[in-house]
């Protein structure tokens, strides 16, 4: 009984395997389905297993080789038992029911044995195959592995080994296909075992695996042609050929993906393992072996046939066409059939996509073949290589451009890091923008010559530099800088208004561009235009240097400049000697870091006595020298950034009470030649640069200011004589000005005005009825003109000269301020009339409005 059952069981299993194989791969004739003894059948099965053992080994991937017993599928075991039990009943109808029941447990046990019998040969065969010296040697050689245990290889190594084995053994395509299909067959067998007990749930075709592309879009075609469209000189047939190659490669990948998707669908229908394994091998050894249209087509047809059979299991007709007819007639009421039908249609649609792409691929292949293998094939290839070489050079140029970009970015980053904050420079320079612009122009020639800049580049920069300079206005230069900053930041090319320079490197064009720009700028500023012209021409000629620039334009200036009096006045007034002669830096006698108390005091005293420094400033500088922050002491060093804001004590390079000795008197004091400063001190406004005297009193316009800054007051008598006199002079000037407007004003003892007015605000407009009903002369007030530079340092008596100039009375005072230094101040007074009076009244009205607003 037991033997019978085992035999039956084996027969059932083997039959199912063989039937499956025949259904799917009926052309393979791997297993004859004609009459055959069970023994032969079993032998054939084992033999077949041996042939595919290497492939089957994938089941052990990434885990230790399982014993045959463990290969059993636990979750289906119970159902298998049931099935076996049921089949046992069917097969043993002649046996009594009681016998069946009694032996049912034994049957179950025998089932386990039968599985062992199926799986045991597996391991044996695997081992057998790979114990074969030749195979082992090959694998070891191929994968450079010392291991003889195939199961211990990684998945990649297994695939690599088998793939190479197939190739090295020169296994023909058909043979490879057979081997692959046999794997599927095995997987089908396994699937069938599960399927039988899992209500067809194993058949799940994943639509998402499918690739939606059916054919190339216009964009894709354009993209494929793009690389070659760059070359205008490339011949059309070469372009077509290269495009076809490109296209073929692209399509091949796509069709492969769809083919893979189809294989995946089928693999999902079974175990989900075999196909992926085949696909991996396929990738290794090339797609043509399995993924050709014919092979995939065959595979799909088999899959479709299998699905049809599942839909109509009771039909004895096995012909695919007949089954398809049945499907067409099916009403679709059966849900199970409907599901299979959908899967069937999905497979069909996907295969259609695959065929379309494959056809396109074949079309591209044909172009390639004709081009390469036609009668001019060799010549064609030669032409292609030549033209491709140009194309590759283009690629190289692109690479070069990338490198250039990186280099430029690096240089710019280095330079930008060295830049100063604009605020830092603005702190040093009152008119930073104007001077910066000047220096840029002045330094341009030096830059160009010293760095030996290419003429074209220098010319373009010159153009931009001067274009920037020409824009005029207080903020022009700043704006220009901002624009350039943006350019640097965003990597855009030269901006400003030099668009035409971007694409023109031709020197002649550049010259024309420069000339046009100069023509434009001429309209803005004659002088600047000349500068631009001279500099631009010089730049193009690569003859640089400030002197040469100046030399070539000085004449132009003389011709153009209509107001050279002002320039000359300044230059004559401040005929400074070079810095090396005027600035005498002081080097303390002590070694930095090792100063003694006496050295400290002596140095400080020396600085105070010889340079008129305040104690604070002297100490600050001595301290800085001692710390090594400065190598020598510049008497005019601004120490405000070192924590002591005492620089305001210094005006015109001199302490408020003392003048630097080394400035020659003759050179400094030429007040008469100073340009006239129009306007008066506006006492209605707060002094923008208030100072403090040596006793700490706040000064505005050189006049002491009382508590809270509410009134001008008399200077402190405790002050040093010179300082006191200077302040008194300034006070008297203000008082005189005030009384001109407020004749009846009275003053307190401290010198402040007795009036409920905001002190310091001397009303300079018409005062009718504003103060105590009194009025001032309507014929126009007297004005006081003086050099603002000397206001604070207003000198004391004596008046050395009184004269007239331009209708105004001049009063020139010369003060001996000690040390052989004299200071001259000219005060001009007079009455305005006509246009000047009109302007003056206009100014007064403005002041009146301000006064009202303040009140």
């Amino acid at each position, binding site marked *: 009984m037991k033997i019978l059952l085992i035999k039956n069981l084996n027969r059932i299993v083997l039959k199912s395997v063989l039937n499956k194989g025949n259904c799917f791969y009926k052309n393979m004739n791997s297993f004859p389905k004609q009459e055959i003894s069970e023994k032969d059948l079993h032998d054939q099965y084992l033999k077949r297993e041996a042939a595919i053992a290497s492939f089957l080994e994938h089941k052990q991937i990434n885990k230790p080789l399982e014993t045959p017993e463990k290969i059993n599928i636990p979750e289906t075991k119970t159902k298998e038992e049931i099935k076996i039990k049921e089949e046992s009943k069917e097969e043993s109808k002649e046996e009594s029911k009681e016998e069946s029941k009694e032996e049912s447990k034994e049957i179950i046990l025998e089932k386990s044995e039968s599985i062992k019998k199926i799986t045991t040969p597996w391991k044996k065969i695997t081992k057998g195959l790979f114990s074969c010296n030749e195979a082992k040697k090959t694998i070891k050689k191929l994968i450079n592995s010392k291991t003889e245990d195939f199961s211990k290889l990684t998945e990649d190594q297994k695939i690599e080994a088998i793939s190479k084995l197939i190739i090295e053994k020169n296994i023909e395509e058909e043979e490879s296909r057979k081997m692959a299909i046999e794997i599927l067959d095995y997987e089908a067998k396994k699937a069938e075992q599960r399927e039988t007990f899992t209500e067809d749930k194993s058949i799940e075709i994943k639509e998402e695996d499918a690739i939606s592309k059916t054919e190339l879009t216009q964009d894709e075609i354009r993209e494929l042609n793009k690389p070659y469209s760059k070359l205008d000189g490339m011949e059309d047939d070469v372009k077509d050929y290269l495009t076809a190659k490109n296209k073929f490669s692209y399509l091949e990948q796509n069709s492969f993906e769809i083919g893979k998707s189809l294989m995946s669908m089928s693999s999902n229908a079974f175990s989900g393992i075999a196909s992926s394994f085949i696909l991996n091998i396929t990738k290794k050894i090339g797609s043509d072996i399995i993924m050709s249209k014919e092979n995939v087509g065959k595979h799909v047809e088999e899959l479709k046939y299998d699905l049809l059979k599942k839909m109509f299991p009771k039909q004895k007709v096995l012909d695919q066409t007949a089954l398809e007819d049945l499907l067409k007639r099916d009403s679709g009421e059966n849900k199970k059939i409907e599901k299979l039908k959908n899967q069937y249609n999905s497979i069909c649609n996907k295969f259609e996509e695959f065929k379309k792409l494959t056809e396109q691929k074949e079309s591209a292949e044909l172009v390639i073949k004709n081009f390469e293998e036609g009668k001019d094939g060799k010549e064609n290839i030669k032409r292609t290589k030549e033209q491709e070489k140009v194309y590759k050079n283009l690629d190289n140029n692109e690479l070069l451009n990338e490198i250039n970009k990186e280099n430029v970015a690096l240089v710019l980053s280095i330079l930008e890091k060295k830049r100063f904050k604009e605020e830092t420079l603005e702190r040093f320079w009152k008119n930073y923008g*104007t001077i910066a612009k000047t220096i840029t122009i002045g330094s341009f020639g*030096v830059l160009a010559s010293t760095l030996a800049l290419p003429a074209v580049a220098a010319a373009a920069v010159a153009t931009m530099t001067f274009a920037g300079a020409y824009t005029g206005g*207080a903020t022009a230069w700043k704006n220009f800088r901002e624009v350039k900053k943006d350019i640097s930041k965003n990597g855009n*090319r030269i901006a400003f208004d030099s668009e035409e320079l971007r694409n023109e490197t031709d020197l002649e064009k550049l010259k024309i561009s420069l000339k046009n720009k100069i023509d434009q700028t001429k309209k803005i500023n004659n002088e600047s235009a000349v*500068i631009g012209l001279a500099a631009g021409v010089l730049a193009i000629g690569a003859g640089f240097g400030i002197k040469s620039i100046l030399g070539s334009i000085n004449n132009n200036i003389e011709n153009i400049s209509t107001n050279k009096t*002002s320039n000359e006045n300044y230059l004559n007034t401040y005929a400074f000697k*070079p810095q090396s002669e*005027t600035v005498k830096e002081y080097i303390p006698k002590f070694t930095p870091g090792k100063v003694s108390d006496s050295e400290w005091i002596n140095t400080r005293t020396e600085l105070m006595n010889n340079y008129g420094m305040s104690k604070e400033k002297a100490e600050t500088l001595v301290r800085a020298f001692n710390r090594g922050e400065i190598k020598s002491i510049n008497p005019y060093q601004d120490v405000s950034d070192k924590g002591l804001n005492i620089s305001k004590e210094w005006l015109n390079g001199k302490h408020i009470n003392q003048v630097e000795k080394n400035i020659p008197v003759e050179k400094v004091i030429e007040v008469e030649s100073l340009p006239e400063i129009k306007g008066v001190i506006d006492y209605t406004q707060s002094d923008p640069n208030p100072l403090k005297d040596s006793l700490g009193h706040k000064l505005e316009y050189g006049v002491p200011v009382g508590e809270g800054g509410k009134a001008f007051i008399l200077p402190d008598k405790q002050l040093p004589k010179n300082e006191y006199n200077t302040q008194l002079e300034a006070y008297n000037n203000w008082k005189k000005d005030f009384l001109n407007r407020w004749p009846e004003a009275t003053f307190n003892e401290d010198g402040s005005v007795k009036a409920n007015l905001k002190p310091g605000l001397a009303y300079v407009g018409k005062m009718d009825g504003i103060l105590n009903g009194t009025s001032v002369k309507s014929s126009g007030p007297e004005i006081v003109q003086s050099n603002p530079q000397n206001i604070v340092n207003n000198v004391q008596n004596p008046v050395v000269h009184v004269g007239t100039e331009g209708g105004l009375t001049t009063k020139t005072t010369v003060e001996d301020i000690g040390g052989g230094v004299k200071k001259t101040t000219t005060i001009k007074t007079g009455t305005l009339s006509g246009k000047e009076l009109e302007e003056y009244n206009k100014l007064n009205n403005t002041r009146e409005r301000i006064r009202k607003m303040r009140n």
Partner: protein
Amino acid sequence: MPEELNSQLDIFSELGMENTPEQDKLIIIQTLQELLQERIMLRLNEILNEEQKIALSKYAEENKDKELSILKFIMDIVPNYEEISKEEVLKIRQELIEEYNANKKSV
């Protein structure tokens, strides 16, 4: 005068950037020029005394659009202005070449 002044090799050749597109060269030159201007201004700030600085500021204020006149004014008070400028250019060039090469090596 420093030896480097005799060099006729342009800065781009020294940096191995001869093939840099013209427009990129222009940007670099502009940046160089700006840096140079700043360096010179700082240098002037160091060497001019307060009186000279104030005078220059006043002159610049009243001659805003007459850069050349201002330049002449500067050169009158600093006769070695051109030499100073050249020194600053050479310093910048030296620094740039050294840092550029150092960066390239580290890359």
